[in-house]
């Protein structure tokens, strides 16, 4: 019900305009609407569930995730998100939040990797443990500086590879990430596009994912954002927590370094 009202509100705000001036007004209205909702972002429901999942015993080992090391020590959640992706010695890999959570579910709870990745994203009437955990863990970095480490050679390699993937043109449409996200002040239809090679835009973009998408009624993560971008790029399906996804997130996080993390945010 509430979701329908939001969609109606945004649809109205988008449908009203009567050219350039009106477009600016629309943008202002959307921003005003966002401000109005800042105190009550529906992502809080997801975050609350995520906090419970963290403490809930699950899997063959009947264990919680409370001993999971997200990079700042076992069980430390505060500030973890803004220092990811990073290198983990136990897996000898650079991992983002989701791939790290999969490792913890396998090691601590005894789930198979397939089980841990079974429902990476939520859908109507189908909440996702993973998506809830991501919402909560991200919220525990709100207001902090984005500071992904680059001290390990594999972290630096992930950044370099991520940059290559950002400019990788392929598929029937010849699209790369950079096609839409490589220049300042561009739009698709009326949607503003962040230039992810520009620090200010990258900080605002990376700093506002995960986000509650009003149009979908779900909290979406950075992994989801990449999955859906590649779909629109006409690529095959990006695998959840794949190496390419982690490399690309490493690139984006580093581009956004120094920005303030303000997620889970609210988006159209």
């Amino acid at each position, binding site marked *: 019900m509430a979701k329908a009202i939001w969609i109606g509100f945004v649809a109205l705000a*988008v449908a009203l*305009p*009567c*050219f350039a001036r*009106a*477009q600016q007004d629309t943008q202002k209205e959307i921003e005003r609407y966002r401000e109005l909702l800042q105190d009550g972002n529906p992502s809080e429901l997801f975050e609350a569930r995520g906090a419970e999942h963290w403490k809930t015993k699950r899997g063959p080992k009947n264990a919680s995730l409370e001993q999971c090391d997200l990079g700042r020590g076992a069980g430390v959640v505060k500030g973890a998100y803004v220092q990811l992706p990073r290198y983990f010695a136990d897996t000898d890999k650079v991992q983002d939040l989701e791939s790290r959570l999969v490792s913890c579910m396998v090691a601590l709870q005894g789930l198979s990797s397939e089980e841990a990745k079974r429902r990476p994203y939520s859908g109507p009437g189908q909440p996702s443990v993973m998506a809830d955990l991501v919402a909560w863990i991200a919220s525990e970095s709100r207001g902090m500086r984005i500071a992904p480490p680059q001290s390990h*050679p594999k972290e*630096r*390699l992930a950044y*370099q*590879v991520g*940059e*290559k*993937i950002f*400019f*990788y*043109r*392929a*598929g*029937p*449409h*010849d*699209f*790369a990430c*950079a*096609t*839409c996200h*490589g*220049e300042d*002040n*561009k*739009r*698709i*239809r*009326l*949607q503003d*596009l962040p230039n992810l090679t520009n620090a200010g835009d990258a900080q605002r973009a990376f700093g506002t994912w995960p986000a509650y998408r009003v149009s979908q009624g779900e909290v979406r993560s950075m992994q989801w954002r990449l999955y859906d971008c*590649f*779909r*629109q790029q*006409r*690529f*095959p*399906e*990006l*695998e959840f927590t*794949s*190496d*390419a*996804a982690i*490399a690309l997130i490493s690139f984006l996080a580093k581009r956004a370094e120094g920005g303030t993390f303000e997620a889970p945010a609210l988006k159209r």
Partner: protein
Amino acid sequence: MRLDVVAAAALCAAMLFGCATHASDAEAERAALAMMKTSFRAQGQAGLDRLDRDEVQALCSKHPNGLPRDLAEKLEKAQLATIRYPASGKLMGDWREGERIAQSGVGKQFNDDPSRPSGGNCYACHRLSPQELSFGTIGPSLYRFGKQRGTSDAIRRYAYGKIYNPEAFSACSNMPRFGHNRILTEEQITHLVALLLDPDSPVNK
């Protein structure tokens, strides 16, 4: 290329520490290619072969800030030779059909139905008919395209060719090669040419 290797080796010798901890550009490129191959799965109509890049895609990926002039000219010449004009010789179709094609963004995504025709999604990036306020800005405004240029045979051929294969005119353009990559049919492209050039098209009002 060879010089690059020599230069990189010299740099390595000079700054052993730095090179020991940073992958070379070629290493990063190799790692990226390997990673792309293991990070996607075939879905719907989008097979893994879509990750294989043709010469244009590989070159443009490698030069994100634009191709050197000689490479750009070579690429444009080769791509110009790929353009196929309709056997009928008719380059202007129906602008009304063109407007529908310009509005439609479906096609080629893994969740799209491959039995339905693709759209051109022109409004995603261009301003065209003034009635449509929801247009993107990645490409230039095409409002009054025909009014400014007329409908001569040369302009028709240019408009058709540009939609068929924009790489023939502007190396590493952001615009898809709608004809060359079989996104749109020859007939669909003639409808878009009409949308751009027909004096009755809203684009030229």
